[in-house]
């Protein structure tokens, strides 16, 4: 018999070897994909963090001051600032320009602040009161106490009109109120402030 005898591995070993090679190739491919995904995720994280920092630097003080005007304490105001930024980052709203962006953020901050007020059982310390008192700025304490004492609808109209410089139409859009209502609240707010401050200040 001169048939060439092809030396081959026994069948079970061949199958086992093939299986091992297949497994290794699958694992290699998986590792490559996972690496790519992880790199993508890191890039996205980094972009989000950068955006958060950008928003905080551009609008942080405005959001914090509006929240403080509702809540009268720094820790709640800080929470609202954080939650407002988180909302923005999660929702990724499509906004036309910077003005639109700021109005969007203030609208969210106002809504979150009002929700927080409902659930706040105990009033926390008003750090601004303490700061102004420690600086012996009775003139500013006087003004702050007067504005603080206004009912919320008047106070928010006063803050957005005089501090942020929004028109009554824009305030209506931020607070989801009719412009006529905003103007009425502004009118009443000014009237009450004049009563409290006893004509010590002019508005203009």
């Amino acid at each position, binding site marked *: 018999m001169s048939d060439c005898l092809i030396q081959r591995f026994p069948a079970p070993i061949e199958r086992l070897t093939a299986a091992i090679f297949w497994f290794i190739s699958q694992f290699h491919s998986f590792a490559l994909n996972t690496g790519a995904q992880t790199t993508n*995720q890191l890039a*996205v*994280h980094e972009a*989000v*963090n950068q955006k*958060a*920092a950008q928003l*905080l630097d551009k609008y*942080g*003080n405005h959001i*914090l*001051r509006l929240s*403080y005007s509702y809540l009268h304490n*720094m820790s709640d*105001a*800080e929470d609202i*600032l*954080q939650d407002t*930024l*988180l909302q923005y*980052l*999660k929702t990724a709203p499509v906004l036309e320009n910077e003005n639109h962006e700021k109005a969007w953020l203030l609208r969210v901050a106002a809504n979150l602040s009002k929700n927080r007020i409902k659930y706040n059982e105990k009033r926390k310390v008003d750090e*601004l009161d303490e*700061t*102004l008192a420690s600086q012996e700025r009775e*003139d*500013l304490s006087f*003004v*702050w106490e007067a*504005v603080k004492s206004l009912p919320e609808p008047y106070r928010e109209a*006063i803050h957005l*009109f*005089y*501090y942020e410089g929004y*028109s*009554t139409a824009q305030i209506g859009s931020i607070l989801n109120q009719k412009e*006529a*209502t*905003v*103007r*009425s*609240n*502004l*009118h*009443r707010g*000014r*009237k009450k*402030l004049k009563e409290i*401050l006893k004509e010590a*200040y*002019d*508005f*203009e």
Partner: protein
Amino acid sequence: MTLSKRYDEVMAHIEVTDEMRSRILNNIQKADVTAPKKNLLHFPGAKKYLSIAACFALLLVGALTLPRYLTPDSPENPILAQNDDIVNVSSIEELSDTVGFEVNNITGLPFEVEQTEYTAYWQEMAQVSYAGEWQTLIYRKSVGEEDNSGDYTDYKNCINIEANHISAQLKGNGESYNLAIWNVDGYSYSIYSENGLSAEEFIKIIDDNF
């Protein structure tokens, strides 16, 4: 110093400190806003259809029984309260009753009025809003002498006009005016025009109605 400048000074004491900034950015990083959304839970088939059937049953029961319990407002004088302080009413007569002084409708407006709304604020200020396709006018009357318009816009143009023995001030930017204010006999009046009117148009309105 004005109140608004004082208020600005007050607000300057509230600011994002470096510590607060780090804390917030750290928390945002931990919150991981990029995390994929969780999968929706699917109702098993039978439960889904049973739930839909239950909703329809509730709707049917509600539609049949609720009308018995809802008492409709009087068709003659429906009063729709927004809240205790701001009340929408359905006629000029009701508005006068609510605020306690006579208020009259403005006629001869230079546009076609499609909708009129009557609102009493805090039982002391009457407002009538006239809305047309391209123009809205808001007329207010209240006791006292103060400007009741609530419009504190810093207008560039201010002029005084005389109409029907009334001295009024007009305010606006550009060629038209958005606001007319005056007071007479212990009442304060204002007319706010969303898209502006000419001085002549304001004079005619005051002449014809006041």
